[in-house]
């Protein structure tokens, strides 16, 4: 398939960009920063075409398997990151975020995710599919960026790295959570519940995917409350954000591959 080649080019772009961001983080070489950004953009360009191809070819069915959804997740992470970098001039955040996008895209290129798109089973034939999945993934993308910022914050403060402003990383992570949380609530919980009501006759049924979505939501709710009412910042906040991201990863992969439930067609 031609889109494998395009995904491959995106992978190469993100990989070299990751290396470039690391080089920039160490040497403060501005040229390296510009190059990394350009490569990330180039990767995003190929990634966009590849995704467009798949959507045009298979429609909503793209959003039903791990391959398609993770490809979209990875795409959004890079897109959100580039917008944040542009707005807040935090080039070094790329060292933490680009590897996440690269890693996710690499995982789906492995045999655990089948590229084949099966036609929509009866339960998935609904307009809520696209709304539920896209909004959830937008939320996941913000959480991934927040985790990237938090991991970098932890590394910076632990190893006393210079040249990075921990406050800035902390603030960006918070912003990513603040943007991701409402979107995730809307897409993951509200849209999911409404769809479950029309398809199964119950808006909530303690299905493992539902429970893990709620767990992820609760972890980020803890993040927000400890921050706003106790003024937890920095290290503690960063740890919770990373925990939230792992919970999101488990909601995404763990539930599909390790637990069984009504969402198990999502493999």
């Amino acid at each position, binding site marked *: 398939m031609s889109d494998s080649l395009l995904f491959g080019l995106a992978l190469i772009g993100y990989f070299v960009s990751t290396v470039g961001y690391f080089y920039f983080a160490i040497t403060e070489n501005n040229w390296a920063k510009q190059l990394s950004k350009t490569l990330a953009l180039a990767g995003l360009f190929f990634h966009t075409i590849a995704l467009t191809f798949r959507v045009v070819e298979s429609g909503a069915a793209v959003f039903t398997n791990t391959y398609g959804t993770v490809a979209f997740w990875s795409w959004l992470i890079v897109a959100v990151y580039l917008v944040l970098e542009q707005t807040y001039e935090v080039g070094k955040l790329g060292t933490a975020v680009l590897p996440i996008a690269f890693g996710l895209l690499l995982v789906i290129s492995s045999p655990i995710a089948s590229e084949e798109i099966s036609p929509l*089973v009866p339960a998935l034939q609904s307009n809520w599919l696209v709304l539920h999945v896209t909004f959830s993934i937008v939320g996941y993308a913000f959480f991934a960026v927040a985790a990237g910022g938090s991991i970098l914050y932890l590394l910076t403060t632990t190893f006393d790295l210079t040249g990075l402003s921990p406050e800035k990383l902390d603030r960006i992570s918070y912003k990513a959570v603040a943007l991701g949380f409402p979107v995730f609530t809307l897409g993951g919980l*509200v849209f999911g519940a409404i769809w479950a009501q029309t398809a199964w*006759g119950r808006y909530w049924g303690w299905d493992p995917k539902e*429970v893990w979505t709620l767990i992820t939501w609760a972890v980020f709710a*803890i993040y927000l409350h400890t921050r706003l009412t106790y003024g937890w910042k920095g290290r503690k906040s960063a740890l919770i954000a990373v925990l939230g991201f792992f919970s999101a990863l488990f909601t995404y992969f763990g539930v599909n591959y390790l637990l069984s439930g009504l969402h198990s067609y999502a493999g």
Partner: protein
Amino acid sequence: MRVFSSVRLAIALLFILVGVMVVGTLVPQHQTLGRYIGLYGKYVGRTITFLGLNDAFHSVLFNALMALFGLNLLVCSLNRAKLLRKVLFDPQVVKERERIDSLEDSRVFSPEKGSAEGLIERATNLLRRKNYTLFSKEEDGKRYLLFQKGKWGRLGPEVVHLSLIVILLGGIISGLAGFSTTLEVAEGERTEVPRTDKTLKLKDFSLEYYDDRYRLDLYKPAGGSYQHDRQMVLETGETKSYGDLSLLIRRPEGTDSGSGNPLFVARAGEDEKVLEFTGERREVMLPGNVGSILSRFHKQYRSEVEILDSGGNSVEEAKVEVNSPLTVDGVKLYQQAYELGSEEVPQAEWVRLGAFEGSGGEGSPVWEGRISLGEEVEVTEGTTVAASKFYPNLVIGEDGTPVNRSDAPENPSVYLEVKSSRGEGDPNSEEGDLSRWIFQQYGDIHYGTVAGEDSEALRFRLTDFGPVVDAGDKSVFQVSTTPGINLVYSGFGVLLLGLALSFFVFHRRIWIVLDENDGEISVGGKSNKEIHSFSEDLEELYDELEGGTK
């Protein structure tokens, strides 16, 4: 009461709830104590059943935690109400200079004598343009000004918390007053719709498959057995390869799309395997010792139902499909599952038969009538007939027995069981067996069942048949009412409003104090969230005041 109102409790509860939910998904649910002890050892196993974690989400523990959480949310919100009323309706205009100077973002300006009033006016104009609302007060020779916008953002968290309470209430109401059950009904049969005076009749259930895509699972030999290697989607007419194999699904030649069973062709060099794909799933051994399972994708489950009132009158005919439920007197019916009947051949509701006397069988029938399948009738004295089977498209299969090829009525046939005192029957059949297939289309050739000697022979003809329905399929509906659903949906709306207020509306306040005594102006600002654009507003204000000072 104070315990319930603390945020500390809320956070602790969130942590505990997360813990229980993690356990509830990772520990297998609804097992016996013995099984838990086997899995986790004596103490952990006993703890699991003691805490009710074997049914974590319906346990007393979990429900108590949720109730406590709801109570905590409510008390927290009520506690904040007084503070919020002040923030919203009684803004703090007077803020002492020292307090302003201690704000994170603040400045002091010393304008030339007489220019202070002008500066204040410039600042006011700038901030008004930016949609800030002005409050002012004069006291002890000082002018206090407060500019604020986005105050409703302060309400956000409370709105979110109240929405969660509404959603929880909706859940409690649904749980207590709602019901949920499954309803299984076979084709042609009736069943009462729970909690209504209506009856549901299932006219037909159909399982629709995709006819342009098929699933092929490939297995490679691995030490005596086969191991799943790849799953592919085969589109009709598209050739895919797997190792040396080229794989193709195509429509049978000479047929238009849609009719006839598709052919599955697997080729490796000279070696070719062709299979007519019938049914839903077939295991096929492919050339090169490759195992495979070819299956169809489900497209839709559809129940055609008729709703009857207590008097047996039809009030509604409807289709119930997955994702489109039917509402009967407030009770919702969801297509949930199905069970295909053991009888794979669709059946006619009735057949019309004619019985003719004499070898020619011409003239008017001695008996004619419509009978249901399985029904036995007496045709003439001493002769009864029953139609036991109906095939819409009978062909003779490979092993010589009749099979039904498709649901299309291309060769409608009925199997008649005849009992007659007229004679020993058909000389061509086994002694005493008067039963045989008769065909509507070939009435002239295989005229029908012969009963008796030539002179008294009784021959049957299939003249008509009723609507063809699948036999024995069952449809399973999820039947439920969710009385709290409107409350839950309203809660969702309020939740989204609250989140929007919390995360996208910021309460920004800028205080300016002009001290008439020394002519100095103190300026400072505060936002309830850390945001970028607010400091821009302040920078702009500082520039404006700076410009006026010079």
